């Protein structure tokens, strides 16, 4: 009874949050838009057949999109008490830990499932739209919707929720869930591409194909296996949670180690003479940049994302190196292999860097210091640039290492010129935009949301046939291959133009920060 009430309370919490509304709206829009507007139909949902077949495929594809939703809802529910400092109060109640965690999980999973209902609703609504694509407007029996929802989508979403519950409990952070979602998508893509048997493919795509041929047994076996896996993951999460300490983690420095004594008068006097000139400002910029870079690089999320990206690079490069591909072709493969991780790093860490002082409740102390606000902002951009350069170096060095392993010369200069420097520049352009959006946002999550909207808008423009680089911030002819490789004569001009715009964004954010209202807000 208590668990059910708590789960209901968690569901209410999720429904009241802005993330639920945004995701539900975007999900509905994407489904209806894909049906009604040719240009908005992304490739994965084109050519999916019609009628019942389309209904089943759309449900399956959308469960992959919902991985990040599940990571967000379940991760937040599982870690909210620790993040808000509420955990000691909860743990001092008689509520059992397993029941409490199950309640949080139940409520969050219910929110994910409720949100997912926008998919069948969107499909139904799309059929009523005038001018809808005939394949999408074709009738489908209710049984198709029920099968797609309850036999395919719901088990997939429950599996995802269970996985993210286990990750959140193990890592005690939402970042662990985000990284898990990225890893799952990457591994899943590699696995499906390699032809996994239907029983072992977790999201039922292959088993659903067998269903088309009239064979239900593979799907039933697949669902049973992976629902069982979901139960095991939930059990694992409960076990991990039960082992976590109830009270404060770690030994606190004891005041007995530092007994109070009367202060000698001499200690009160100071010889420090603060300066407020350009040298001091430069030092402040360097110190703050170093601080942000350290915080980012030390974060487990960053390290895991880097490892994932490196893994992808190595896996894609090695066969090509062995085949004797030219260095310029290998760099192009490297760029293709390491496309997602920089975007995730930019998305996540611009928010982490910009809101760090507020999150750690150091903002008032730093805000009362005589350091110019633009210096603090420039340090954020500089740190982002340094982190992106580090990413480029870390992945760039993989290619010379593989070349040496294959008995070929490392060609470091070519990698530096055609990958490390140009890609750092390209990523920094995107990073400046993401950072600028954070400076406009009332919160880190809103800043993330704005950047995601930018990414979706880019995709929509592409699908609408508006692919001119002039309409896409940061893009240039031949992108993502740098002009030194593509040989495109206009690319540098475009990159210069976007660089100028990025400088303007930095200037605008800094100028806004000078105003007393912005500083004292």
């Amino acid at each position, binding site marked *: 009874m208590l668990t059910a009430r708590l789960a209901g309370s968690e569901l209410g919490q999720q429904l009241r949050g802005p993330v639920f509304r945004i995701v539900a709206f975007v999900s509905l829009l994407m489904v209806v838009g894909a049906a009604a507007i040719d240009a908005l139909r992304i490739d994965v949902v084109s050519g999916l057949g019609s009628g019942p077949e389309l209904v089943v495929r759309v449900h399956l594809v959308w469960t992959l999109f919902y991985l990040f939703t599940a990571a967000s809802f379940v991760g937040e529910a599982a870690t909210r008490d620790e993040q808000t400092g509420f955990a000691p109060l909860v743990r001092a109640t008689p509520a059992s830990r397993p029941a409490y965690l199950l309640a949080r999980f139940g409520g969050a999973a219910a929110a994910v499932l409720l949100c997912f209902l926008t998919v069948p609703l969107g499909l139904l609504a799309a059929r009523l739209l005038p001018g809808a694509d005939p394949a999408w407007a074709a009738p489908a029996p209710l049984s198709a919707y029920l099968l797609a929802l309850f036999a395919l989508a719901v088990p997939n979403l429950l599996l995802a929720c269970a996985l993210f519950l286990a990750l959140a409990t193990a890592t005690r952070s939402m970042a662990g869930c985000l990284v898990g979602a990225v890893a799952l998508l990457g591994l899943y893509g590699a696995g499906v591409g390699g032809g996994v048997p239907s029983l072992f493919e977790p999201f039922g795509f292959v088993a659903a194909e067998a269903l088309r041929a009239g064979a239900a047994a593979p799907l039933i076996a697949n669902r049973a296996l992976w629902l069982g896996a979901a139960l095991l993951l939930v059990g694992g999460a409960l076990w991990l949670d039960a082992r976590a300490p109830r009270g404060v983690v770690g030994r606190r*420095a004891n005041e007995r180690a530092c007994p109070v004594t009367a*202060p000698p008068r001499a200690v009160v006097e100071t*010889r*420090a*003479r603060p300066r407020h000139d350009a040298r001091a400002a430069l030092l*402040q910029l360097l110190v703050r940049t170093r601080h942000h870079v350290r915080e980012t690089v030390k974060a487990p999320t960053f390290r895991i994302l880097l490892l994932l990206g490196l893994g992808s690079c190595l896996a894609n490069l090695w066969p090509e190196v062995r085949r004797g591909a030219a260095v310029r072709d290998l760099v192009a493969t490297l760029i293709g292999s390491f496309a997602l991780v920089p975007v995730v790093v930019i998305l996540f860490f611009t928010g982490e860097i910009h809101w760090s002082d507020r999150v750690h409740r150091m903002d008032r102390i730093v805000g*009362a210091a*005589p350091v110019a606000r633009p210096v603090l902002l420039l340090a954020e951009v500089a740190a982002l640039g340094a982190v992106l350069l580090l990413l480029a170096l870390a992945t760039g060095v993989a290619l010379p290492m593989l070349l040496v392993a294959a008995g070929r010369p490392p060609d470091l200069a070519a990698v530096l010129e055609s990958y490390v420097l140009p890609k750092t520049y390209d990523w920094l352009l995107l990073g400046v935009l993401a950072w600028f959006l954070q400076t406009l946002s009332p919160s880190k999550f809103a800043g993330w949301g704005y950047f995601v909207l930018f990414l979706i808008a880019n995709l929509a423009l592409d699908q609408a046939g508006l692919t001119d680089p002039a309409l896409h911030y940061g893009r240039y002819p031949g992108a993502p291959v740098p002009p030194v490789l593509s040989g495109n004569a206009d690319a540098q001009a475009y990159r210069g133009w976007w660089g100028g715009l990025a400088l303007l964004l930095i200037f605008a954010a800094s100028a806004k920060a000078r105003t007393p209202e912005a500083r004292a807000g």
Partner: protein
Amino acid sequence: MLVLENVALTYADGTEALRGVDLSLRRGIFGLLGPNGAGKSSLMQLLATVRRPSCGAIIFEDINLLAEPRRLRRLLGYLPQDFGVYPNASATSLLDQLAVLKGIAGKNERGAEVERLLRLVNLWDVRARAVATFSGGMRQRFGVAQALIGRPRLIIVDEPTAGLDPEERNRLYDVLALVAEDAVVIVSTHIIEDVASLCDRLGVLAGGRLLFTGTPAELAAPLRGRLWTSDEEPSSGLVLSSRLIGRRRRFRVLAGAAPAADARPAEPTLEDGYLAVLKGAHPC
């Protein structure tokens, strides 16, 4: 000298946190008393330049805080009511970083300053440990240390003794008393005992208004001869406070004559004066 003229603060949701606050302070310690939600922290944030008033003027020496906030920050030390720390940052590294932000550019100069401050607050022996692992009292001591970096001439300390034991409190106020010889120190608190022996002057803030400013003696003395204590429910006068002692309730009452049969004259305390101000019964 710090001067506030008609300072007001209204938040975006319409809450009037401060209304028409006038104040002028010289060197020494000024205690700001008030109940929770009175506007003390809002006033401290204005003085620390992390928030801007809706109207009014704040002048420190020749610096107009609203026009030149950064110039004021060069002379400012601020300990917020509630602050966090960066994870995994040691006391030394965090103080060093804050010293850079306060303009101490020389590495040796900073090192000497960090050592001086950590010794002052007796955290030198744990300088290499992460501040995030400190106990509450140690964290507050660290907070005081960072507020004293450089030579602040305006020191704003917001509820510094919350969670500290009596020995820690006394130690903290010893430090502030020493630095107050060359600075204006404003300490906000809702604990009367904190200001009793420490502050040259004090103010009582309630509902965003400064209801009283003066010395501690001026707060309590006017009630002399009008304060009574009784164990019976009083039939007249204004009850300033009541407290359960054992199973009996004891009243402190402000009245011209004995308000109950068992009423006895009482010597007014700072708390009595404070409560009289809050209830609008102080003759100030």
